[in-house]
């Protein structure tokens, strides 16, 4: 212990005496450890922390159907599961809930979730004020608020319980307020009861959660779920395959796990590069400390003791770097959280630095000290005593090879990071250049979610929307205005089957979106009309049914034949009046994101001919033209003239909605870009340091060469060639590594292969140029060596 204290004391003094070295080393380590701590903070909070519920390992998501990445359970299955399941003690169905709150101050949009009464016991949560709803309550007329909504909209009113607000036009009594931080699922702000009541001819799908009964494992629950699912669909041989159980934690974070680990890997690379840099600095400094180490050995220090002392210095450096890194993390984590696009990373509100992150930073600092400290310690401690202690010894240690290996490693690691960033940036640029099928420029959108009212007819709703559109069309500078019930890129899409006129269903019927639109919609959105005509004021509820199809529909259904005049229907069991005549063909439009490989086909109807009022409660109004700075407030005030109490869900330029779908690739590009910029800087400093040291070591040799007649260009060339050899070696190793490593980016890339040759080549050239530029100053310095000074150097 005493010897350790002695070593620590000496280490502090040694580092204090060399402030430049210490500062540079601390900076490199702080960047590496800080970046790792910041990303680990997110990984820890999102992936490693259990969910903030009692016994979270017992809470599961149960499903009987899969849709791509999503899972769900239909209403009939849910009712049967509630009766038959022995594995779960509480099951709850969850669906999107209320979206507007009125009757208390300014009408506002809210994130509502409708949940069955089993929701609260399934999660094991209670209200912090009042209570949650349960069986026996009048479920049509109650609601529970989130703590955040209670504070922001209701001023943390302590007498909120029993007050009545309108959610989607329905009066509801506030029963309770949840505890701070509870917003499950999906940042919910208000919870209303969901009553699952399957009806013939209609089916709803829900997200279903449940709490395992005591003593029941998840495997047992899974087996039971598959068995029940098979029983419910005896004629469907694959029913059991589509059913399953997954822990709620996994269902929330499973999709984001690979991406977070990619980011963690990227910052790991930065740390390795920082370690190589610091190791190089230690090796350079070691040459100056050779004599000191030899003296210590001659005084009786064993090699183990010397190594221990040197590693104590490394540990002290690493721990101080780690402490600075934690400061960087404290500052960086909130910044990072702000940069994350909405909805991309679940549990983001729980992200924060805790004791586990501190422990991680501490252990990482210790590990880092070993990584960068062991090689220099081993190298220095085996210094030849006799050579180092003699008065006139001038021999150079063999550390130069090790330094060269370290620099080549830095180049290799930097190249891998840079290639990753290059691929992400190329993917992002390709994605941004995808034609969405419409022109988002100079286009502004306003969306509303009208409160559902069974008694409202489609005609009444259409009249309402027409009133709004008329007001918006009259705004100064507006060229066109239209409306659609399912706006592209609006996170909502209704799909269904459509059929061509035939006696039997054709083999190739398509899943299409079925939006209802106003006549000027296509003009307002800038969607090209390819054939036929757009809808007009003659297409009313009483006139023959018409449809406009997208280009892919026309191609799939009729090939090269002219679709104008053909008949289609959107009904499963069509009556004669349900057949629609195709009057026009428009461009395909990306519906949900720019990366859609196959366009989502669409069959448009005039809004006046939409027969189900349900589809007309959610509406998007689009205007093209107008002054972008004044348009939002004008649109808002015109809308208020029609309906002063209806909250506006969304107001944004259409371009913003499109950009939002590229937010994730933009985020990854920015992150990897920033990481690789740091890596490139560290690697450049590394190569500069090695070459500068090498030139200093070769001063005598260079002086002799000049005295013997070497030109300055010869000296310059020899230094650059030596550097080029290091750089090209590093690049070759880096390319091999990148081919293996970039595969992990496969799922994050759009239209770019992980081994894209152009990116590999361009990035390699960039790195070579930067690295050679870092060599330029030492090479110039070498050419200015005065042989008389150099030869007097000894």
């Amino acid at each position, binding site marked *: 212990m005493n010897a350790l204290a002695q070593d620590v004391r000496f280490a502090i003094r040694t580092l204090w005496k060399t402030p430049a070295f210490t500062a540079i080393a601390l900076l490199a380590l702080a960047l590496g450890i800080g970046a790792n701590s910041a990303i680990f903070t997110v990984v820890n909070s999102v992936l490693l922390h259990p969910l903030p519920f009692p016994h979270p390992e017992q809470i599961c998501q149960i499903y009987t159907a899969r849709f791509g990445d999503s899972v769900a359970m239909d209403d009939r299955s849910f009712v049967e599961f509630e009766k038959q399941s022995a594995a779960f003690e509480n099951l709850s169905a969850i669906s999107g809930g209320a979206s507007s709150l009125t009757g208390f101050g300014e009408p506002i949009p809210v994130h509502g979730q409708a949940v069955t009464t089993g929701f609260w016991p399934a999660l094991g949560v209670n209200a912090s004020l009042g209570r949650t709803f349960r069986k026996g309550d009048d479920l049509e007329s109650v609601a529970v608020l989130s703590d955040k909504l209670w504070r922001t909209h209701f001023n943390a009113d302590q007498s909120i319980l029993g007050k009545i607000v309108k959610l989607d036009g329905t009066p509801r009594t506030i029963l309770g307020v949840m505890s701070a931080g509870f917003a499950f699922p999906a940042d919910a702000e208000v919870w209303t009861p969901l009553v699952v009541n399957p009806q013939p001819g209609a089916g709803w799908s829900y997200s279903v959660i449940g709490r395992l009964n005591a003593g029941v494992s998840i495997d047992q629950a899974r087996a039971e779920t598959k068995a029940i699912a098979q029983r419910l669909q005896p004629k469907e041989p694959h029913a059991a395959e589509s059913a399953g159980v997954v822990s709620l934690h996994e269902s929330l974070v499973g999709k984001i796990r690979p991406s977070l680990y990619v980011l963690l890997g990227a910052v790991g690379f930065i740390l390795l590069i920082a370690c190589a840099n610091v190791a190089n600095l230690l090796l350079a400094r070691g040459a100056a400390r050779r004599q000191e180490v030899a003296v*210590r050995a001659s005084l009786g220090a064993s090699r183990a003791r010397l190594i221990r002392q040197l590693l104590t210095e490394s540990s002290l450096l690493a721990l101080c770097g780690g402490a600075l890194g934690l400061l960087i993390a404290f500052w960086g984590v909130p910044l990072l959280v702000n940069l994350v696009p909405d909805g991309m990373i679940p549990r983001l509100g729980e992200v924060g630095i805790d004791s586990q992150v501190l422990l991680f930073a501490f252990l990482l600092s210790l590990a880092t000290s070993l990584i960068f400290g062991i090689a220099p310690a081993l190298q220095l401690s085996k210094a030849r005593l006799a050579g180092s202690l003699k008065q006139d010894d001038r021999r150079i240690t063999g550390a130069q090879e090790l330094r060269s290996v370290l620099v080549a490693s830095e180049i290799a690691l930097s190249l891998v990071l840079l290639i990753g960033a290059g691929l992400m940036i190329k993917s992002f640029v390709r994605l941004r250049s995808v034609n969405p099928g419409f022109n988002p420029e100079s286009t502004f959108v306003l969306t509303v979610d009208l409160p559902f009212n069974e008694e409202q007819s489609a005609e009444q709703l259409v009249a309402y929307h027409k009133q709004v559109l008329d007001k918006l069309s009259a705004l100064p500078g507006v060229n066109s205005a239209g409306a659609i019930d399912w706006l592209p890129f609006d996170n909502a899409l209704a799909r269904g089957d459509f059929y061509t006129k035939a006696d039997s269903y054709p083999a190739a019927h398509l899943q299409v979106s079925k939006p209802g639109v106003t006549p000027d919609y296509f003009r307002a959105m800038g969607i090209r009309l390819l054939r036929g005509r757009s809808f007009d004021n003659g297409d009313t509820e009483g006139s023959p049914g018409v449809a406009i199809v997208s280009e892919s529909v026309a191609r799939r259904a009729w090939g090269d034949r002219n679709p104008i005049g053909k008949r289609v229907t959107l009904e499963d069991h069509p009556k004669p009046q349900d057949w629609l005549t195709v009057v026009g063909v428009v461009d395909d439009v990306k519906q949900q994101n720019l990366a859609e490989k196959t366009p989502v086909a669409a069959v448009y109807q005039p809004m006046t001919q939409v027969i189900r009022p349900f589809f007309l409660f959610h509406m998007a109004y689009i205007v093209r033209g107008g002054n972008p700075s004044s348009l939002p407030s004008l649109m808002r005030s015109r809308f208020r003239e029609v309906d002063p109490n209806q909250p506006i869900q969304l107001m944004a330029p259409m371009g913003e909605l499109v950009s939002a779908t590229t937010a994730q690739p933009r985020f990854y590009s920015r992150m990897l870009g920033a990481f690789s910029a740091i890596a490139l800087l560290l690697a450049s400093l590394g190569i500069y340091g090695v070459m500068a040291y090498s030139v200093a070591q070769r001063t005598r040799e260079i002086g002799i060469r000049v005295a013997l007649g070497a030109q300055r260009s010869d000296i310059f060339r020899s230094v650059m060639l030596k550097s080029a050899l290091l750089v090209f070696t590093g690049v070759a190793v880096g390319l091999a590594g990148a081919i293996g490593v970039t595969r992990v980016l496969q799922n994050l890339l759009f239209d770019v292969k992980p081994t894209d040759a152009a990116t590999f080549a361009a990035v390699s050239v960039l790195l070579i140029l930067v690295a050679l530029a870092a060599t330029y100053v030492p090479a110039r310095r070498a050419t200015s060596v005065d042989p008389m000074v150099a030869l007097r150097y000894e």
Partner: protein
Amino acid sequence: MSSPILTLRNVEKYFEHGPTKTFVLRRINAEIKEGEFVSIMGPSGAGKSTLLHLLGMHDSSWTGEYYLIEHAIHKLNKKDRMELYKKYFGFVFQSYHLLDSLTVYENLDIPLSYRNIKKGERDSIVCDVLDRFQIVGKKDLYPNQLSGGQQQLVAIARAIVASPKIILADEPTGNLHSSQGKEIMDLFKKLNEGGTTIVQVTHNERNAEYGNRVINIVDGWITDTSS
């Protein structure tokens, strides 16, 4: 004089460059008895310092036989050699080689620390040596705050702090002026009179007169040993 404390038989050291060998020491046969004060002399490049460092076990690439009392050094591994070195030797360098980041006190303490002596005992020994060398007032100073002579004094104090039987000194007055050098040689004499065997490398005839024997080396050969 008593029995031999250091014995070299047919010791040679050379560097190989391809097929050729460059000898630094050739067939060195020498015996140093306990309590002797021996000076190794010779022209520059003769191999004096090489021989001294070999005796001090700083160099392990040589052939022949080397006996430290009854221990056959040539048969020992590095670890065992280091243990014997710590037990028997103290080394004084021409350039003092004090550790610049340590105070005078700490420079004296460090050899004891490397011999795993407990702190209390170390403190006692260091204080005793500081007192003996009359440098108590300088114990908290750093080497760069001392004159050359004071630094060499501290270096000698460091060399004897662990009570070695043998002191090896490589040109101990080489970087000092004559009055400082005399003080240092007087100190060596006193240590030798106290029973410590001293082997020094020197160019200085006057310094050699402090000893009782001279070993001359020329071109790696011992040419004569004279009293």
